[in-house]
């Protein structure tokens, strides 16, 4: 009779405990960042893995998304004879939403899952326990550089994504469909504002970087020390990371005052 209710209670307690543990983990990693040494060497290596190796995916997706926006925007705008505003449509969509959100989703799939799998298999092969035995904090050596690199890399990737997208929109709009090149750039420049658009885009990218870095390292660090545990950690990184990005995106947009 009370079994389903009890199951619900158990789930709620476990969810709360998990969130609390994640918060403690976040604080511990934050303390590691403030404690020297900085481990610049590891951070640069992680930037290579998370950033440079994601570059091809980000650029190809950016150009393609920009080209699609160019086509779709043109088809809508041409009905109103307002194709000069194509630059504004492509630029605003990319800067405000698609740039940071799609970059974060791609980075979750490409870099977040790899991070979780790497830390997870370190847990499974007892490498972290080995570090602890030598009284080296695995949070400082393994987790902190990955999390920091994720936060550093995300705004850079997002900016490159937006630049590629604007170029893709230019390719389709100006080269293919014959919108005036000057009008494309002018409408882009006059409609995109620094505070409303570029700054909020940057803030989003940084927050998504923190989210993805947090989820990926936490899931990897707490994965069960088995093959199934590593696979579960990778899956839940992608799922939780993607959902968190989209939910946070709504709240950042609403709080930044776009609707007001």
């Amino acid at each position, binding site marked *: 009779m009370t079994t389903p209710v009890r199951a619900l209670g158990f789930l709620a307690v476990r969810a709360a405990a998990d969130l609390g543990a994640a918060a403690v983990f976040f604080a511990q990693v934050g303390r590691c960042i403030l404690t020297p040494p900085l481990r610049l060497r*590891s951070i640069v290596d992680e930037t290579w893995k998370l950033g440079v190796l994601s570059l091809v995916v980000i650029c190809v997706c950016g150009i393609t998304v920009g080209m699609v926006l160019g086509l779709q925007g043109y088809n809508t705008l041409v009905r109103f004879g307002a194709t000069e505003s194509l630059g504004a449509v492509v630029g605003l969509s990319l800067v405000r939403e698609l740039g940071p959100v799609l970059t974060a989703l791609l980075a979750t799939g490409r870099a977040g899952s790899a991070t979780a799998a790497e830390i997870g298999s370190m847990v499974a092969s007892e490498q972290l326990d080995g570090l602890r035995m030598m009284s080296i904090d695995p949070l400082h050596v393994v987790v902190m550089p990955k999390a920091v690199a994720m936060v550093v890399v995300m705004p*850079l990737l997002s900016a*490159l994504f937006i*630049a590629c997208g604007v170029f893709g929109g230019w390719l389709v709009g100006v080269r293919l469909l014959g919108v005036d090149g000057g009008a494309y750039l002018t409408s882009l*420049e*006059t409609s995109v504002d*620094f505070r409303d658009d570029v700054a909020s885009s940057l803030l989003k990218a940084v927050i998504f970087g923190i989210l993805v870095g947090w989820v990926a390292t936490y899931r990897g660090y707490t994965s069960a020390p088995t093959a199934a545990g590593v696979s579960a950690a990778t899956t839940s990184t992608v799922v939780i990371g993607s959902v968190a990005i989209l939910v946070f995106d709504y709240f950042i947009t609403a709080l930044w005052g776009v609707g007001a």
Partner: protein
Amino acid sequence: MSPSPARDLVVGLFVLAGLAALAWLSLTVGGVDFDRGEQLVLRARFDELGGLKTRAPVVISGVRVGQVSAIALDPDYRAEVTLRLDGRLRLPADTTASIVTAGLLGDRYIVLQLGGDDRLLANGDEIAFTESAVLLERLLGKLVHDAGGERNTRGGSPEGKDGGP
């Protein structure tokens, strides 16, 4: 991982490329403008802006020479617009500023038409001759009103038509 100079170079290039993209977004697209050389700052008052926004372009003969940097309400409840223009411009004192629309429903921008005065506008001067924005709704309303009025003068009521003076 062992230090690898080639990889570090690529990481450095990646960070530079990302920062360059950020700078491009902020400066060119986002329009954070530092004082690029000398600028000519002028003010102009209008009765109706009709949706003119800050960062709207200011053009002479269709060439962009600056932008609207601020919009405020003056004590007489007229709109005071601050224009930030290229400092090399030499504008006569009787220059006219008009708010016009790009296309039928496009964005508002300001057109400067030069006069023939010998005196020049200096930094901080006010453009005396302005032409406010034409509101499409008001124009349509006037058109409808005029058309209605015309029909009335032609003879609105049957009596008027039959037994007119």
